[in-house]
């Protein structure tokens, strides 16, 4: 196989996402070879070891080939930088990933991950403003996970319900659980309870979106797999929502885009 192998790693709070891409020098010659997801704790425990101030990863044990370029990003980046690679700021990785995946240059990126919510305004391919959640992870994937477990439904099923949401008002993800249990006791059907959970996420994101102009929202992160959240976000914001093919790997793919620039020493064009 010709070209360079580039590995992008997004060290998330809940899972570590790895994208393996192959790139040639031509603009369109850039393809995804593999996408892998690992539980964050398992990743650090089984494949990582501290090497001075950096984190050395045992790629061989993970079944990954030797790569030409390694670029990492994510929450762990400021605590531990990956050995043998370059680290880039998280928001930058997400912007690059979204541009690559959607072919768009003007949009508002909404990334809802395991703990973090990020909203980034991208104009002409550049980040011009952003907001992230702080001190509270009540609008994140972890909230959905907890609520799905209270409702005893798989995460995928939770995303099927958007109609007639029950009102859940607690601002705290943990107190939200007992509030939901209260609604179960009151006898609301599963569909309405699940819709209530999905609507809560959207309710928390909409105020953050208020100051961001632009007609298109690119929605990434694990929460973008939830169809009901997509539908409710579309209705609540009145904007067109684009969910790229690999929403959860967006940051890892963005790292590969950055790695490609380094591999070939020139900025790549955005594919159509």
């Amino acid at each position, binding site marked *: 196989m010709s070209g360079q192998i580039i590995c992008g790693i997004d060290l998330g709070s809940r899972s570590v996402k790895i994208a393996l891409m192959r790139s040639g020098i031509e603009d369109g010659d850039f393809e995804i070879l593999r996408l892998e997801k690992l539980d964050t704790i398992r990743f650090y425990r089984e494949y990582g070891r501290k090497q001075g101030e950096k984190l050395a990863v045992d790629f061989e044990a993970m079944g990954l080939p030797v790569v030409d370029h390694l670029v990492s990003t994510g*929450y762990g*980046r*400021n*605590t531990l*930088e990956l050995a043998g690679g370059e*680290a*880039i*700021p*998280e*928001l*930058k990785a997400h912007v690059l990933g979204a541009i690559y995946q959607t072919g768009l240059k003007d949009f508002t990126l909404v990334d809802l991950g395991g703990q973090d919510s990020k909203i980034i305004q991208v104009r002409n391919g*550049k*980040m*011009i*403003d*952003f*907001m*992230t959640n*702080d*001190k509270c992870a009540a609008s994140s994937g972890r909230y959905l996970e907890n609520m799905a477990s209270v409702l005893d439904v798989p995460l995928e099923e939770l995303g099927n319900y958007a109609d007639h949401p029950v009102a859940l008002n607690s601002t705290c993800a943990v107190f939200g659980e007992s509030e939901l249990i209260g609604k179960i006791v009151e006898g609301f059907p599963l569909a309405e309870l699940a819709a209530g959970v999905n609507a809560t996420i959207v309710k928390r994101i909409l105020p953050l979106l208020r*100051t961001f102009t632009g007609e298109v929202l690119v929605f990434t992160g694990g929460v973008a797999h939830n169809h009901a959240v997509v539908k409710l976000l579309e209705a609540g914001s009145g904007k067109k929502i684009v969910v790229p093919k690999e929403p959860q790997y967006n940051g890892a793919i963005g790292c590969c885009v950055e790695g490609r620039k380094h591999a070939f020493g020139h900025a790549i064009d955005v594919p159509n």
Partner: protein
Amino acid sequence: MGKIGLTTTVPVEVIFAAGETPVDLNNIFITSSEAMRRVEEAELAGYPRNVCGWIKGLYSTALHNPDIKRIVAVTQGDCSNTHALMETWEVEGIEIIPFAFPYDRDPDMLRLQMDKLIGALGTTWEAVSLQKKRLDQVRALAWEIDRLTWEENRVSGFENHLYLVSCSDFNGDPDAFAGEMKEFIQTAREREPIFQHKVSSGSRRKGRELRLGFIGVPPIFPELYDFLEEHGARVVFNEVQRQFTMPFETDDVVEQYRLYTYPYKVFQRVEDIAREAERRQLDGIIHYTQSFCYRQIEDLIIRKKLDYPILTLEGENPTGLDARSKMRLESFLSMLGD
């Protein structure tokens, strides 16, 4: 001569005129190596977790300094948590002297408040005027440090913060503090101007350093300044710290505290920030707010009124810059650098 504690900047001329020594409790709290312990002590005493870290730190700090028997507490012009703070101190036997900055900057109301403070401390307007003349000379040195920061680029963001913030109480000794500042100014003038900083491995910024404004209350994590400078940016405008130096020239001490922007409406602050941002050629602004502070609401006005890239940064406890704040700061700098 006794020590009088302060919860924030007040007409400190009155305290010096009365022959007393002002102690800004904020400064001794945050410079203590046990700052976080002070917060925890307040929580153990019953202060809720979701209350400003400064309030909790101030509470315990005063109790750790039994030589502070009286405190001038700002009941208007700062947050209402101060009311409960005063009351919990009073329960512990500390004498409280309330002071209110009138919300509408009414000069008569302000004069009356100062008059009451003069009465409470047993001094006179004449003595206050003399102190103003004395302190203005010390403040002029702080203005020079500020100028050396933004115009000559010879002073770091942290140095600027430290000298300017200390003007709330002049470290209790204006003459010694003036001496310290004179020495610093001399050293700073001999320095090479800072135009390009070392760029950390993670950053790919080229060219000149980024010029930032820091607005809002002084940070509970002063490590912020060094972090920014390690990443190719420098704070050349510390909004509230500069206000502590009474940056508007006037001979009238009442007018001086009327022009001081911090305790009044946000709009006067916005005007001052816009003027300085233009003069100091800022690339971006960090709006610092304390967790659980009412000033977080004002963020929406600041964002609306100021036409600069703004990062709203929230701090809670004196435990250093956390990974999330670092991530946000880095992203902000990388955005400005593009």
